[in-house]
């Protein structure tokens, strides 16, 4: 397990900046202008709107009807659908990037979803909350209850999130299904990138969330 290549940040994702979420800014920075992007679980389309301001041809899939209708009302090309069941309908190589932003933990089959992302897109960008974050660990260790944070406020019995993982777990999954990690960034509690020169376990401990730019591995 290793983070293979860590590219310098362009200075965009330095804390939550204005109207856009830090992880969205980071994702948008990873996408080459002019490319074609599918945002799976696009919510109300904030990321897609950010991408469109950069000349990126964006599409979205969203499970909730309210989310879809808001997106369409914003003029975004978004369809109602379920990441677990609908990705199979998309042909190979249909997009340059497929984005799964803060949605992996809500899918029934994260591994299958991840495989589909990299079949449909030449690259995938995945962001997720890190369950290895020190606050999470502390709540379980000291409090003895399932962790809840500002970003994940739901209680264990009514959360849509069913497959939490840590940064370490995710990296392992990527290794297992032969996915190449082109770039990875952990963001701390304030949306700031965790310094890159720190050892790997620090990321897993102090990254509140992580963003990975992935591509297909060569060995398949």
């Amino acid at each position: 397990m290793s983070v293979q290549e860590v590219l310098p940040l362009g200075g965009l994702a330095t804390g939550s900046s204005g109207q856009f979420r830090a992880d969205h800014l980071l994702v948008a920075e990873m996408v080459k202008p002019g490319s074609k992007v599918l945002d799976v679980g696009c919510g109300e389309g904030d990321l897609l709107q950010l991408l469109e301001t950069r000349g990126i041809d964006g599409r979205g899939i969203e499970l909730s009807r309210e989310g879809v209708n808001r997106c369409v009302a914003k003029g975004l090309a978004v369809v109602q659908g379920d990441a677990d069941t609908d990705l199979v309908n998309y042909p190979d190589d249909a997009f340059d990037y497929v984005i799964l932003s803060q949605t992996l933990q809500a899918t029934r089959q994260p591994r299958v979803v991840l495989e589909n992302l990299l079949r449909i897109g030449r690259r995938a960008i995945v962001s997720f909350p890190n369950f290895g974050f020190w606050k999470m660990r502390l709540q379980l260790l000291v409090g003895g209850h399932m962790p809840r944070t500002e970003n994940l406020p739901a209680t264990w019995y009514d959360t849509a999130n069913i497959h939490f993982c840590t940064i370490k777990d995710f990296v392992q999954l990527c290794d297992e299904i032969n996915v190449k990690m082109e770039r990875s960034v952990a963001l701390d509690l304030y949306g700031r990138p965790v310094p890159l020169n720190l050892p790997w376990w620090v990321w897993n401990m102090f990254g509140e969330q992580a963003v990975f730019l992935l591509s297909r591995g060569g060995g398949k």
Partner: protein
Amino acid sequence: MGGVKSIPSPAISADERSHEVDHPSSQIAHFGAEQPLRLDCGVDLTPFQIAYQTYGELNADRSNAVLICHALTGDQHVANVHPVTGKPGWWETLVGPGRPIDPKHYFIICSNVIGGCMGSTGPASINPATGKVWGLDFPVITIPDMVRAQAMLVDRLGVDTLFAVVGGSMGGMQVLQWTAAYPGRVFSALAIACATRHSAQNIAFHELGRQAVMADPDWHGGGYADHGIHPHRGLAVARMAAHITYLSDAALHRKFGRRMQDRELPTFSFDADFQVESYLRYQGSSFVERFDANAYLYLTRAMDYFDIAADHGGVLAKAFAEIATRFCVVSFTSDWLFPTSESRALVHALNASSARVSFAEIETDRGHDAFLLDVPEFFDISRAFLQSAGKARGLKDG
């Protein structure tokens, strides 16, 4: 036992209706022998005419034309008072000043489909070869035939690329046919409450309607015009049956429940005791005032035959291969005639074709008819879709 009242005769005479068939109170485009309409059944229809309405002005670069496609029993009077019924345009909620499709921004075209009975050549028109009404001698037409005729009209109006093609139900089928047949001529497509093919259940309902028309002794094998009558009872029954499919159980219950009409107790007869009965009878009788029975047979048949995938080797995605048109597909939760699953199949095919597609399902209990009713969420989506398409098209406002 009380007496049995059947469906009343229409208040408008057959003469008044037939006047609109050949001399409609709208604009008409005539196509002579040099421009026949090649029909799917192999016949060249000539001469023929298309009745249409326009609203708004075509802009200098001819980029703001919107074609509205009407549903089964609609016509070209989308946003003006109807010449026969005196009622507002059938899509006044969507089309008109301040509406999502505003004549201030767009050049709006709506034509009566070929095979119809409001001024476009159809079975109720006079066959120039015989000087008599066509009746069942009129060739069977299809949705692609309707679209081919519309394309000839759009050519005549000097429009190359339509900014948008918009329609619901049968109109939605025409929208899809436009994008499949003329992908380069449709910038954006708004397909509402429709499907890429007519389902077996829907064909079954149409057959019920047709059989009701044909069972009317006044139908005379389709030759009722020669007898100076109209099979209004059969057509009204067809309309009543169809109307039920346009609504939902919840909407009917909310509107009528089991309430009685002008009485407290049942009459123990087959009078319209229940409000829902008089409502249906009214729907049936007002429909026959403006619609021709044979046209109903032809247009239902056109919908039955519709199957875009079948025209592309059974692969729906092939119909939309490499398409640049921007799509917005809308369905309604309580629509059981064109359920969301049908729209979803279309969206999957468009995704597979890598088309730019939006899809929204609107929550409503009003059934298939919801697309004609005042449903704000639907209007918001239509407006936003057309505005963003307008921006991409370089239209000033929209």
